[in-house]
């Protein structure tokens, strides 16, 4: 475990120097929130637009951080042989993947904290104190499960194919999951099964009145199971080529 933590620390140190990561996970949602949150006066999912959009943008930044950067890096590090090099050290076999997930626990945090603060002080979202951590943790969990999907994609695809694959997943989950605009009608009838929709809806339901349909958190856990299964298969099936 000490080795895994040492590797996690090194990974975090790398990330601090990575501008791309900050642009995608923090700058994008912050800019979008500043531009749009106050210019829409309608409500969404039964809450103020500023409230909905705060949750949607926090989720957007956090999930793209867990998915895009990770998948690309894993694929690159697999190709360059860093994963192989680590397998020659006394690190446990799963340490690399565990590290990537642990790092994602941390990398999803800045987007969530910053966007929620924006919501409070710029978007006029006023909530009882306990609702903030509930919303934050929900988004955090909903976004971090994408780290498992990133592992699956990164192990399965070479670096030049990772970009189109992650972008496809990213757009689908962002659009039909209702991160860019609230979904309704036909789009919602499909989109309600996505983890992004589920995480956002839990948040807006909490703001609305505190009662959350049990199907939403269960849905998130099912997605976690699916992503972990995909990651496990991808890692196992590529064991001899890493």
């Amino acid at each position: 475990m000490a080795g895994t933590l040492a590797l996690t620390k090194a990974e975090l140190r790398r990330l601090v120097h990575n501008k791309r990561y900050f642009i995608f996970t923090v700058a994008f949602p912050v800019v979008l929130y500043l531009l749009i949150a106050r210019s829409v006066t309608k409500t969404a999912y039964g809450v103020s637009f500023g409230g909905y959009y705060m949750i949607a943008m926090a989720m957007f930044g956090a999930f793209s951080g867990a998915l895009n950067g990770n998948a690309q890096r894993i694929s690159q590090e697999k190709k360059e042989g860093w994963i192989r090099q680590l397998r020659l050290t006394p690190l446990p076999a799963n340490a690399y993947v565990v590290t990537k997930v642990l790092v994602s626990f941390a990398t999803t945090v800045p987007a969530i904290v910053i966007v929620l603060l924006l919501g409070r002080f710029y978007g006029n979202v006023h909530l009882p104190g306990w609702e903030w951590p509930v919303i934050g943790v929900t988004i955090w969990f909903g976004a971090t499960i994408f780290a498992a999907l990133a592992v699956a994609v990164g192990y399965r695809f070479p670096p030049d194919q990772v970009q189109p694959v992650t972008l496809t997943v990213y757009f689908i989950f962002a659009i039909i999951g209702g991160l860019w605009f609230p979904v309704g009608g036909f789009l919602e009838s499909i989109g309600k099964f996505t983890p992004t929709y589920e995480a956002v809806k839990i948040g807006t339901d909490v703001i609305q009145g505190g009662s959350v349909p049990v199907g939403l958190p269960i849905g998130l856990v099912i997605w976690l199971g699916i992503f972990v299964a995909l990651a496990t298969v991808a890692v196992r099936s590529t064991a001899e080529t890493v």
Partner: protein
Amino acid sequence: MSQYGTGYGASGSDGGGPEYDTHGRYGGYGRDGEYRTQAGQDDYQDHAAIRLAADHAADHAADHAADHAADHAADHAADHAAGFGGSRRGAPVVTFENVSKHYGRLRAVDGLTLDLRAGETVALLGPNGAGKSTSLDMLLALRKPTIGRIRMFGDEPHHAVKSGRVGAMLQSGGLMPEVTVRELVELVTKLHPNPEPVATTLKRAGIAQFADQRVDRLSGGQTQRVRFALAICGKSELIVLDEPTAAMDVETRRLFWNSMKEEVAQGRTLLFATHYLEEADQAADRILVINRGRLLADGTPAEIKERAGAKRLSLRLDQVDEPFLLGLPGLVNLEVRRHVVQIQSRDSDATLYAILDAGYRPREIEVTSLGLEQAFLAITAEDDAANGHAYAGETN
């Protein structure tokens, strides 16, 4: 027999010798390290090739069993002045028991049986595609053998890797980008249960002077030395290196082997794969020659040279009786160019005496030792001939 294709980065010093080139028919190593042969094959070369093939086929089954054991006994008896591991020999560190690795129909490794003992410095020598890297991958638990069993320190290779008893550097091993050399070495050092001080590793690997540079901004030779540092940053008993000096210039290579010498002097066992024969000759006290996944020879550099018929006898005869020459003792290969006879022999003394005893009075007698390079080429070419494969040279 003679179509060796491109050579193995010959240094030229113990190549075929430029004097033979003037005879036209004899192939030799040019300055660029390429093996050259005349296109025209003479009958004698063909004869010789057939003899070799027949010899080899007969020997073949025995080769892997009896010969191996015999080689081995000899190996232990022989003195190991050649390599810098000296003659310290101990418990088995690595054993391969009839190990094969198949990729579909391709047999990358085919029935490999060998053992390494503590304190040995062993070179794994073979052309590209011979199965060196696959063998090392299996040893390091990166791949599983299709058939057979590998043991390291009497246990599954996996356990040896996880307990830090082996340090390894593979061609395919990459480095973490975006960190400095020092940060990377510190990280991997932390992963070892029995680490060396970071400063010691940096110094031994010769990377202290660029320790604060970023890993992704190093030259090929520098990168190679950082990988080496990662292989020696724990106090491992066995060090495995795959083509360690690839991408290094001559000076760096020399420094590398000097630091390697220090590692071995501490009683570590060293296994390295290479196709630089000079390195195998100078550094190893035991050489394993593999080709197409099979172990062809196992012995000291001297034994390997001897086995391949490692003396070349050149002489001028006024009258050449080819059938007589082909029957000479110790003969491995014969080439005749008018009155100049070139004989490759396992026992040049016996060959020469037989010529003299038959009443010949040859002139311009020269006996030269073949280097390990020719021995290696002879052994692999024998194997290829025996198996009906033209040796295709290096294939990448």
